[in-house]
């Protein structure tokens, strides 16, 4: 007698791989297209060329948009991870009656549609002159990335025994020294990975950027939006390929940090 073939599992497997193909194919399809010699985005791509990449790197406008996004994302990562970590630490180790307010402040930016925040900020920043400025973008993106920083840091800090700091202080350390010398090193990998995630969220953020961008100060997503909306040039697959590579790098970085982490 033979073990029966497990039709149920085979069917489930087939279905799952079909869905995974649906998820992943649209993402990877841009890679061959970015090397296509066709000037229009037909399928299948033909030939091999790097001209779309050089078009991207040679364009002053694309370079300016990228540079703006890089600056905004770096500052956002810095701001969000510092502010978010400080707040999380205070919530976990402090005497605070603000738990509910804190939770609402975290869930709000996730739940409230980005279009609502974008429109609100557009109006507000216009009146105070922050629209289209780096501080404006950074402030907006910090709000959007804080929840992710806090969730990551809460998980990490929650695993660090509060008695470790008490022990350090009983050895004569001040509270700040105890944090800096005991807790911080333990959560540093998580802090770094939350900064990575804040960077990529900001770098890829399209909606708020769309409304806050001015005529001259355009982030990369805003430039891409215009390009896709208006003429869909083959530069887009090249940029998309680069952005996917960036996401892979960020995820790899986070993965490495996670495997390094003591507080996994």
């Amino acid at each position, binding site marked *: *007698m*033979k*073990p*029966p073939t497990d039709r149920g599992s085979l069917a489930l497997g087939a279905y799952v791989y079909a869905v995974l193909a649906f998820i992943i194919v649209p993402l990877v399809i841009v890679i061959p297209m970015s090397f296509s010699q066709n000037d229009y985005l037909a399928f299948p791509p033909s030939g091999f060329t790097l001209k779309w990449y050089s078009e991207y790197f040679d364009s002053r406008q694309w370079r300016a948009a990228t540079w703006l996004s890089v600056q905004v994302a770096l500052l956002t990562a810095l701001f969000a991870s510092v502010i978010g970590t400080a707040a999380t630490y205070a919530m976990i180790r402090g005497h605070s009656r603000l738990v509910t307010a804190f939770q609402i402040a975290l869930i709000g930016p996730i739940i409230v549609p980005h279009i609502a925040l974008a429109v609100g900020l557009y109006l507000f920043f216009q009146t105070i002159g922050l629209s289209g400025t780096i501080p404006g973008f950074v402030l907006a993106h910090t709000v959007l990335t804080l929840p992710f920083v806090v969730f990551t840091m809460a998980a990490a800090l929650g695993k660090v025994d509060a008695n470790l700091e008490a022990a350090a202080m009983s050895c004569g350390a001040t509270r700040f020294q105890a944090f800096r010398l005991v807790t911080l090193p333990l959560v540093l990998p998580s802090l770094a990975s939350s900064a990575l995630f804040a960077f990529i969220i900001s770098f890829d953020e399209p909606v708020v950027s769309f409304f806050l961008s001015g005529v001259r100060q355009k982030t990369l997503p805003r430039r891409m939006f215009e390009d896709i909306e208006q003429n869909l040039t083959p530069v887009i697959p090249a940029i998309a390929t680069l952005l996917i590579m960036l996401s892979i790098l960020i995820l790899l970085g986070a993965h490495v940090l996670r495997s390094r982490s003591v507080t996994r």
Partner: protein
Amino acid sequence: MGLGARGRRIEGKTEGKRGSVNIVSARQSASGASIRISRLEKRFGAVSAVDGVDIDIAAGEFIALLGPSGSGKTTILMSVAGFEFPTSGTIHVDSEDLTYVPSNRRNLGMVFQNYTLFPHMSILDNVAFPLKMRGLRTAERHARAEAALATVRLAGYGHRRPNELSGGQQQRVALARAIVYQPRVLLMDEPLSALDKNLREDMQLEIKRLHAELGITVIFVTHDQSEALTMADRIAVLRDGKIQQIGPARQLYERPANLFTAGFIGEMNFVDVRVESVGDDVAVALPWGETWRLPATAAVEPAVAGEAAVLAVRPERLQLGVSPAGQVIAVTLSDVVYAGAALLLIGHLPDGTEMRARIPGASQLSSLVPGDVASFTIPTEAMLLYRGKRR
């Protein structure tokens, strides 16, 4: 091969429906089924988890699978339950080949290590679950589930949720759930290891009682040898996926079939020896130069002149003092431990081999102190001889 081949059951409401399982009549006294596991092999890639296992289990027998971690106990049980299909070999229950029958059509009872009560159902619904799967009406289901709860002395707990019961109670519910449809075989994978010691002993008795009452065939996996020795009719000792010995507790303890079982079950002293001659008796040379003549029956495995062998003796068989009934050894004591019922003496033979003795009711001997040299007699019939070297 259909389920119809098996007799003795009444049909549930959904008789004849594909996939439904039949249940044994409540009126007919349920009794155990015989199980035959033949040449069972299971490989996970390069690992041979089960390696040619044969076990014949009589109807109504209580058998324990005992072995160190990774010896393949769970894998055997999973194959019987139908969660793993073996690489080769067969499993028959009452001469019906179940090797590749899906578990939901095997009609076996099973108790898991961590209770596995469904957390979203009440206790009663948990116990009634297998009856529901068999298409019984709600009223009938509940009546039978109540009765099963009563058998495990949890009548009246039906409306509670699993997390409102203690570990021991949860495991009793799991037991009720496993027997409510009167399966003829009950499988248990370390069912008591999550309980603390006192509860464990209560549950051991509970399971023994149910086994006697229901006459069900039980396969019980454990790595606790005292549990296996006290509960099972027979014990199968496993190591690296192979059966080392199957037999009743007394046989396993008093005449282990090989060095592994000898060392695995209970405490045992081992001394490396060399076989000098084999005749009406066996002459062995001890490390310190003496030669002993042992009766031929001492050799559990055939002794061969000139080969290395191991002499084994249980600590409680050593007698303090010199007597003509056996061989005398001189032991330099290193520890004297008062252990309640017995005095545990630990020391070394002249060649350095460690030797332990348990002397019952010997607290008056507390004049012994570490450093003393004590003489012990090993009764001739207490000596067992195995081939090979001690590890």
